[in-house]
């Protein structure tokens, strides 16, 4: 149960990080955000 809730929290964070990528104008900052996405997605999918 608690794991599901935490996956939900990750999903929430992910949505806004992806949103941010498309609002951000500098590519280096977009890359920074894309970097953060990687572990979050892998944990959300329970791969790592």
């Amino acid at each position, binding site marked *: 149960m*608690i*794991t599901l809730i*935490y996956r939900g929290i990750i999903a929430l964070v992910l949505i806004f990080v*992806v949103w941010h*990528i*498309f609002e*951000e*104008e*500098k*590519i280096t900052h*977009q*890359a920074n*955000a*894309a*970097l953060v*996405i*990687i572990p979050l*997605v*892998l*944990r959300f*999918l*329970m*791969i*790592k």
Partner: protein
Amino acid sequence: MKKHYLTGTLCLAIAIVIMVLSSMNFLSLKDLGEIVPGPSVKEVKMLSDYFEGIQDTNMDTEVYVLEGTKPGGKVLILGGTHGNEPSGYLSAITFIENAVIEEGTVYVIPYTNHSGMTHNDAQEASPQFIHIPTQTGTRTFRYGSRASNPIDQWPDPDVYVHAASGQQLSGSETRNINRAYPGRPDGTPTEQAAFAIAELIRNEEVNLTFDLHEASPEYPVINATVSHEKGMSVAAEGVMELQFSGIQMALEPSPSNLHGLTHRELGDYTDTIPLLMETANASQGRLRGATNEALALTGIDKSYVKSQELGFLYVPYDESGHPIEERVGRHLQGIIEYTKAYSNQYGEKPVTFSNVPTYEALFLEASKEDLGGPQLGKYLH
């Protein structure tokens, strides 16, 4: 389309490619390879046979049942309590594939924390696999983690409170099965696995339990056997025999205020005599140099040679390192001698076996170029 949408899509696409490639790698770690059952293996059970709660989970693990031709006592060997201590599970596997049991029954769990074998710890840069050449080709084993896989148990609490004693440890120890004994049927997956092992010991009335570990060379309890109070006489006799075989082995009493470990809780909560053995593994140490498969197999490390010169280590260390044959040999010789000592002292329920490679066969008689895998491979099928 605006330019920053394009660049954003590009960044996201690169992230996705990285995720796909690394996912393939991480998912491949679930395959722990095959174990070839030896002559005495009568049955391969699952740990969930003793506690259903872990059935169909990543905590469930194989229990090899090796039966003798004559009745006798019962011994349990726990390998792979910590997946980053390869001599533990490689000793258990070597035992399964070679031992011929004469009297009694030996249960062997090669991967005690199965979940811990399926991932590696962040920032430890551990090798993912260990390759050992054998007569039938190269065998691949996993190199795992000290703790259960977070995908099986997450998130960690800030502080781990050991249920039976109230002892507090840092939150990540929640996933360390050797801090979870005697376990709880309604606890975390790690506590459930610990409970299943305690249940196996209670249901099968196991007399003597070995927990095979490794420690970093700078850790004070090393090249040692830790025994519960009730195992002291067996351990003392065994240590003497080990000294005769040329193995330096310290005997440490299990501290009464350190909870959750096999040598404390299995002794307190079951009738078994628990013994925990430690060998020296450079690949888990804090003073180690480059971290890779060779380090795990040979222990050759100039960083540890330097630390030895500076007096930081609790084991001798030179350019030859501590090869896997030496470490597996110590464990197997320990199992041989302690089991003999147990059978001497508890004559009504003896356990005897043969054909288990000794310290001499694995290490002392090996040529230098065979150390670091090939010599051990001669005993793997």
